[in-house]
C-alpha cells in the first residue's frame, strides 16, 4: 500500500501568496494595512511640512496662557484672567450641561410621543405623527435658529417689566412674580442655601458643601429605602405577608432630603429688575434655551420612532395575554410591553444620545459658548492654533461619546434578555 505520508509536501513559493487561497486573504490584509499606514504617515508628514513652511510649531502651551475674554454662562468660576485651559473647561461643562439636559428631555418626549403615537385615539396618534414628521425632516440648525428667533424677537425686553413711575404699571408682568421670559434670557428663581457651609476645592473647581450634603442625603435615603424593601421581602418570604412600605419609602426618599434642605436653610431668591437686567434669580440665556429645546424636540422625534418600533416589536400575544389576565392597558404597557421593548430600544437610543451630544456643537449658531465656542472658536481665533485646537476638540468629543456609549452599554447589559 502506498504510504500517504510519502506524498511530498509542496514547498512554499512566493506565488502562493497570490494564488493560494490559504494565504491570499492574509496578503490582501497586509497590503491594505500597509497602504493605510502609508496614507496616515503621508498626512502626518504633510502636516508637519506645512507647519514648518508656515513657521508654526505644534504645542499646547497656549492652554496655560491668559484667555482675556469673558463667557456669560459659566458653571464654575471663571474670569477673563483665567487661562485658555480654564475656558476650555467652561465650554466643556456647557456642552455637557446642554447634552445632559437634552438627553433627559429628549427621552421623556420620545417615550411619551412614541407610546402616544400608537394610541387608539385617532386625534392624538395623528398629532404625534405630525410632530415626529415635522421635527425629523427639517434640519436641526433651522430649528435652533427658529426657536432662538422666537425668543429674541417675540419676547419683551427686560425694560418692559419696569414699572412706569407715572402709571404705576409695567408693560409686561412677571409670571407668578418669579419667572420672566425676556428677549435675552429667562429669569427664574435661584435656589440658595441660607446656611453657608463653605466650598470644597476638588482640584478643578469648588463645590458647595451644602450641595454635597444634599447629594449625600439623597444617596443615604436611597440606600435606607433599599434596605427597608429588602427587609419587607424577607418578611414576605418568611410569613407570606408583605408589610406596608410606601410610607417608609416616602419618608426615606423624600423626607431625608427635605429635612436636609430645611436644616441648611434652603430657599429661592427671586429675580428682580435692577439697572439694565434682572438680578437675584438665575438668568437662563436664550441661546441655551433655544439650543436645549431644539435638541430635545429634534432628537425626541427620533427617539419616539425608536420607542414605537420597540413596542411594535413585542408580539401581540404578550398584550393579549396581559389583557386576558385582566391588566388594564396602562398597566399592560408599563409592566409587560415596555420592559421587553427596552431590549430593542436601548441600542439605537445610544446612538441618539451620541447624536444629541455631538449636535450640541451647533451652539455656535446662537452664540452659546460650548466647547466649540470657547476652544474651537474664541481660543482658536485669538491664539491662531488651529490644528491643536481642532485636534483637541475632536479628542474631547470622542472621549465624551465613548463614555456615553460605555455607560449605555452597561445599562443595555442589565436590561437585555438573560439567558440562563
Amino acid at each position, binding site marked *: 500500500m502506498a504510504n500517504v505520508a510519502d506524498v511530498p509536501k509542496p514547498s512554499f513559493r512566493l506565488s502562493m501568496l497570490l494564488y493560494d487561497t490559504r494565504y491570499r486573504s492574509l496578503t490582501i490584509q497586509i497590503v491594505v494595512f500597509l497602504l493605510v499606514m502609508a496614507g496616515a504617515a503621508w498626512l502626518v508628514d504633510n502636516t508637519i511640512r506645512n507647519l514648518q513652511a*508656515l*513657521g508654526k510649531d505644534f504645542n499646547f502651551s497656549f492652554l496655560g496662557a491668559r484667555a482675556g475674554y469673558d463667557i456669560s454662562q459659566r458653571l464654575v468660576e471663571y474670569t477673563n484672567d483665567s487661562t485658555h485651559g480654564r475656558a476650555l473647561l467652561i465650554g466643556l461643562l456647557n456642552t455637557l450641561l446642554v447634552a445632559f439636559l437634552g438627553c433627559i428631555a429628549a427621552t421623556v418626549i420620545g417615550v411619551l410621543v412614541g407610546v402616544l403615537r400608537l394610541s387608539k385615539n385617532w386625534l392624538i396618534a395623528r398629532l404625534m405623527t405630525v410632530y415626529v414628521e415635522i421635527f425629523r425632516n427639517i434640519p436641526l440648525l433651522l430649528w435652533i435658529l427658529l426657536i432662538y428667533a422666537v425668543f429674541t424677537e417675540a419676547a419683551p425686553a427686560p425694560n418692559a417689566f419696569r414699572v412706569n413711575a407715572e402709571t404705576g404699571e409695567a408693560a409686561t408682568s412677571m409670571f407668578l412674580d418669579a419667572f420672566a421670559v425676556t428677549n*435675552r434670557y429667562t429669569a427664574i428663581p435661584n435656589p440658595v442655601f441660607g446656611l453657608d457651609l463653605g466650598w470644597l476645592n476638588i482640584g478643578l473647581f469648588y463645590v458647595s458643601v451644602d450641595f454635597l450634603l444634599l447629594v449625600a442625603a439623597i444617596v443615604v435615603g436611597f440606600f435606607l429605602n433599599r434596605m427597608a424593601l429588602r427587609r419587607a421581602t424577607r418578611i414576605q418570604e418568611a410569613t407570606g405577608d408583605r408589610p406596608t412600605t410606601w410610607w417608609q419609602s416616602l419618608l426615606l426618599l423624600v423626607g431625608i432630603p427635605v429635612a436636609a434642605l430645611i436644616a441648611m436653610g434652603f430657599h429661592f431668591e427671586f429675580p428682580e429688575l*435692577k*439697572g439694565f437686567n434682572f*438680578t437675584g434669580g438665575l*438668568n437662563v440665556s436664550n*441661546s441655551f434655551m433655544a439650543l436645549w429645546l431644539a435638541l430635545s424636540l429634534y432628537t425626541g422625534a427620533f427617539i419616539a420612532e425608536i420607542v414605537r418600533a420597540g413596542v411594535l416589536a413585542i408580539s401581540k400575544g404578550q398584550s393579549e395575554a396581559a389583557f386576558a389576565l385582566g391588566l388594564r392597558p396602562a398597566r399592560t404597557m408599563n409592566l409587560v410591553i415596555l420592559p421587553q421593548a427596552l431590549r430593542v430600544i436601548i441600542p439605537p437610543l445610544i446612538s441618539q444620545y451620541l447624536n444629541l451630544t455631538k449636535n450640541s456643537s451647533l451652539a455656535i449658531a446662537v452664540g452659546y459658548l460650548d466647547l466649540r465656542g470657547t476652544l474651537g472658536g474664541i481660543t482658536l*481665533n485669538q491664539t*491662531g492654533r488651529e490644528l491643536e485646537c481642532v485636534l483637541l476638540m475632536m479628542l474631547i468629543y470622542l472621549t465624551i461619546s465613548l463614555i456615553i456609549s460605555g455607560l449605555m452599554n452597561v445599562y443595555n447589559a442589565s436590561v437585555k434578555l438573560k439567558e440562563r
Partner: protein
Amino acid sequence: MKKSAFLGTLTVAGLAAGMVSAATLDDVKARGELNCGVSTGLTGFSLPDANGVWSGFDVAICRAVAAAVLGDATKVKFVPTTGQTRFTALASGEVDMLARNSTWTFSRDTDLKLDFVGVNYYDGQGFMVRKDLGVTSAKELEGATICIQTGTTTELNLADWFKTNNLNYTPVAIETNAEGEQQYAAGACDAYTTDASGLASTRASFADPENHIILPEIISKEPLGPAVRHGDNQWADIVRWTLNALIAAEEYGVTSANMEELAANSPNPEVKRLLGAEGDLGVMTGLDKDWAKRAIGVAGNYGEIFAATIGEATPIGLARGLNAQWTQGGLLYAPPFR
C-alpha cells in the same frame, strides 16, 4: 493644489500654506484674478450691491491692488470672511490679501504669521446704545448686556476695559456684523460694541439712525489695515506700496482726474516718480512703471476713496479725524517715493 485640499479637509483649519507657492504675485498673474478677503458685509467698507458688485473703503484697496498688478480693477474675487475665518483663509492661501478692517496687533503680526502692510484706517473701539436708554457714558453700562463679535480684538478690549473700570457686563457672542445688528435692533443687548467706524456704518444702515448714539468713550487703539501672509516680501511690498501710493497721491494732490496731466507736467519729481513718468519704481516691485497710476485711476487717491465711501457726505458720515494727512493734523504719512 489637490494635496492642499486633502490636508485642508484633514485639519479643518486648512493649514495648507506650504502648498501655496511663496510667489503670490506669480500666482495672481497666472490666475488673472486677485482673491481678496473682505468682511461679510459692512456698509461703506465692503458690501455687495443688488447686482453683486462689491464696493466700499476696504474694497477700494483690493481694486487698487488688482489694477496695479493685473491692470484691471474688476479682476477681483471677493471672499467674504468672518472674524473667525479671516486669518485661516489668508494662511491657507484661499485669499491673497485681507482688506477686512482687521486690527494690527503684535501677536497677529508675529504669532499668526501675518504681515500687516500698513494702516488704512485708524480706529478705536466704541459703544452704541439706544437713545432712550438714557446712557451718556460707557461708564454707566454697569450690568448691561453687550453684543460683541467673537474672534476679534474688541472682545479682549471689552473684557479689559470693564475690568479696569470695575464694571460687570454680560457678553453676547455673535458671529457677524449682520447678526450683531439684528440682535441689537431686537433689543437682545443693551449696547453693541465694535470699532467706532463699524458702529457708524451699522447705525447708518438702521431705519432710525437718530435713535441711536455712539458713546464718547473710545476704549482702544484699532489700527485697521490690509494684511498678507508672512514670508512673501515681494507681495507684501506690492500691497504696502499700493496703499502708500493712494495716500501719497492725496498728499501731493494727485487725483484720478488730474493724474495724466501731472504725470506729464508736474514740477514735483516725487509726483513724477510716483506716476512712473520718471525713474522705474514700479519695476523694482516686479510690476511696471504705471502701476501706481492704474491704482489711483480706479477710484482716485485715499481722500477721494474716503469721501466716496465713508466720508461726511455719505450716510456713514465719518470725519477724517486721525485719518487726515499728517500735513492736516492726522496720522496718514506715506514714506517717500524715492
